[in-house]
């Protein structure tokens, strides 16, 4: 049988349809598509894909189970190393990880590993009966700070080994960026809730509304009998550009805009948490968060959404798939342009004019690419005299975050780098004995899967540390 040189395409909602709803864009493989895609895997000896996976899933192993139509068996293979398969199958950048190493990819398109992972996880969630079994307790207690991807992964791995794990989450809901940041149309919240439920079945305590560094400190966790602590507190305060006009009403950080829509459900009809929507929306930045914000704004009912990014399409850091989705949906890309000022409305005749203080536009300058910087990315340089104005009713700034100071400020002896990120060794161990860290709190804003990988590494290190105790 001749091998299909192309990856089976992902069935998706039509762009014109999905631009107006919050339902998931990608619909997932059917059974037939999954079997056909699995047949493309060569099951090669050296398994380069496994090394490309931050949590080292036995990829050919699970795909062989799919070939045999043993979907639960496939799930169990993934579940050995990944705690959140339904999440990773959706949000991992497979094209730069496992799939970039695939042997098939040398001559043809690589195997759709992420799409198969998603199929298997969704099959399990729809068909599996019975609950996850909590193993016999080993008598050790571990505290996890933050219920995001790194914390959930670390908690899952330790719980499976018999640790008594308690997660402390600052918000009212577990999931971290999976619930406040990534929109419903890319990652349905029911999937996150299901993964959290599975952890609870494994015996993990999930304590919401506890801010470590405020409600309790890390030292108090040790006093309470926890023998090790993993800090996965995530990225912190949003960065702004420090240009005039960022205080105008209608200027959001991406974190705020997405939190209002996702966590607080401002996208529903008649929400309790308001959000500015409609009109013209400009999103500043070129990462995945910027794509999420732009596509959210579109679905909230904006008449035009554009991305303003200072480099060109080639340097755009967002996943190619997200950029393509955004383009198909009609997001306008204003590349090689940089904001210099956000413009606000001011009626000098009437200080009580309701529009006063709201955004009305943005002044941008055109850029060209100059010499490469130390990272090899060509530096954008403003073109003198090229400034012009764009109209806008809402501006969303998606240019990254800086680490949250709460834990650093209240934990003696916890070393941080000059950006405020927690310093760790290769095991995720911080400068404090028994305190491990991972995810954005260490690296600054990065991906879900790299945070999960860090949670996994730390779980193994914590296990080793406490086994010796």
């Amino acid at each position, binding site marked *: 049988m001749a091998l299909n040189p192309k990856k089976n395409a992902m069935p998706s909602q039509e762009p014109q349809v999905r631009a107006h709803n919050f339902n998931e864009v990608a619909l997932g493989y059917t059974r037939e598509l999954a079997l056909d895609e699995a047949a493309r895997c060569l099951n090669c000896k050296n398994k380069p894909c496994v090394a490309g996976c931050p949590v080292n899933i036995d990829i050919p192993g699970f795909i062989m189970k799919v070939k045999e139509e043993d979907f639960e068996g496939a799930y169990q293979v993934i579940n050995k190393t990944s705690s959140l398969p339904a999440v990773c199958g959706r949000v991992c950048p497979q094209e730069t990880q496992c799939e970039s190493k695939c042997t098939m990819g040398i001559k043809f398109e690589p195997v759709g590993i992420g799409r198969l992972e998603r199929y298997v996880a969704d099959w399990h969630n729809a068909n599996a009966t019975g609950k996850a079994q909590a193993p016999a307790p080993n008598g050790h207690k571990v505290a996890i700070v933050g219920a995001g991807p790194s914390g959930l992964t670390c908690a899952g791995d330790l719980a499976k080994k018999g640790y008594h794990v308690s997660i402390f989450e600052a918000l009212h809901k577990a999931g971290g960026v999976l619930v406040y940041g990534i929109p419903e149309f890319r990652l349905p919240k029911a999937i996150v809730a299901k993964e959290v439920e599975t952890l609870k079945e494994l015996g993990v305590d999930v304590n919401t509304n506890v801010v470590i560094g405020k409600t309790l400190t890390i030292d108090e966790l040790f006093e309470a009998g926890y023998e090790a602590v993993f800090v996965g507190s995530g990225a912190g305060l949003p960065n702004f550009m420090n240009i005039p006009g960022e205080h105008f009403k209608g200027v959001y950080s991406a974190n705020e805009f997405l939190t209002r829509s996702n966590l607080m459900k401002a996208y529903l009809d008649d929400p*309790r948490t308001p959000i500015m929507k409609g009109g013209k929306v400009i999103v500043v930045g070129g990462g995945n968060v910027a794509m999420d914000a732009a596509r959210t704004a579109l679905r909230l009912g904006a008449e035009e959404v554009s991305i303003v990014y200072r480099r060109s399409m080639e340097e755009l850091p967002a996943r190619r798939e997200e950029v393509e989705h955004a383009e198909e949906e009609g997001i306008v890309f204003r590349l090689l342009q940089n904001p210099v000022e956000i413009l606000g409305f001011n009626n000098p005749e009437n200080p009580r004019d309701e529009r006063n203080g709201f955004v009305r536009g943005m002044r941008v300058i055109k850029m060209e690419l100059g010499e490469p910087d130390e990272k090899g990315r060509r530096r954008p340089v403003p073109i003198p005299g090229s400034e012009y104005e764009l109209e806008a009713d809402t501006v969303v700034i998606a240019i990254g975050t800086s680490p*949250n100071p709460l834990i650093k400020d209240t934990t003696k002896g916890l070393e941080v780098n000059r950006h405020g990120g927690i310093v760790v060794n290769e095991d995720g161990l911080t400068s404090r004995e028994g305190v491990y860290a991972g995810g954005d709190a260490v690296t600054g804003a990065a991906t879900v899967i790299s945070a999960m990988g860090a949670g996994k590494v730390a779980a193994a290190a914590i296990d080793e540390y406490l086994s010796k105790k």
Partner: protein
Amino acid sequence: MYKIVRKKELNPTVTQMEILAPLVANKALPGQFIILRVDDEGERIPLTVAGTDPKEGTVKIIFQIVGETTLRLNHKQEGEEIADFVGPLGRPTETEGIKKVCIVGGGVGCAIALPVAEEFHRLGAEVTSIIGFRSIDLLILEDEFKACSDRLIVMSDDGSYGRHGNVTVPLKEMLEAGEKFDLVLAIGPGVMMKFTVLTCKPFGVPCRVSMNPIMIDGTGMCGGCRLTLVRDGKRITKFACVDGPEFDGYEVDFDEAMSRGRMYFPYERHAYDEACNLFKQA
């Protein structure tokens, strides 16, 4: 879930509740705040801690019924529960080295000012309190302020109680008479704090203010609570949730903060009216 242990109406628009939240009660210091959600669909709103009873595990909050969420909260009765209650958030009031303080409270801001006044009193500072209300119907916490203040001046905008006028009038008189405060701390509506700062300025007396911008997470994630400080001519962005809520009054850009506070006014009015109708029908 967090139980409402006690509920008391302080005036027709202001309610006091004591909520069972032992971890928060154990930690909260004057000047800090909490964030709550009334129910599962509710928005997150910040309220400053008005007192704690660590033994009982309760935290006192005092709120004015101004919008949909406070209206829904006010509909909850003693013994009922609210969905979420998290804190203590923000930095506590800095009390070190303050021997003589003037606390200026406006309206429901007096609820926040009270625990701060009590703390200074407990630490042995000389406390002067100036509390102002629109009218006698809205007066709250007079006895409590009396108990912790060496001197208490009550003002009303309409002259229906205490002295006629706003809180800056007696403050200016005292400063002109040569009173030396180590600190004037103003807590209340933006415009009141702005004018308290302007009153202090000619006398060079240190003046701090407690800012209450719109917030969502309150833990340093969303950036919605940002405000601008002007320091040495430079504009600096700060976040009320982790850098505040108290700031040097001379540095705060009040006009900007007040404008941002009105971002959702039309929405809030509509939501409040809708919730009102809902409760009327029920």
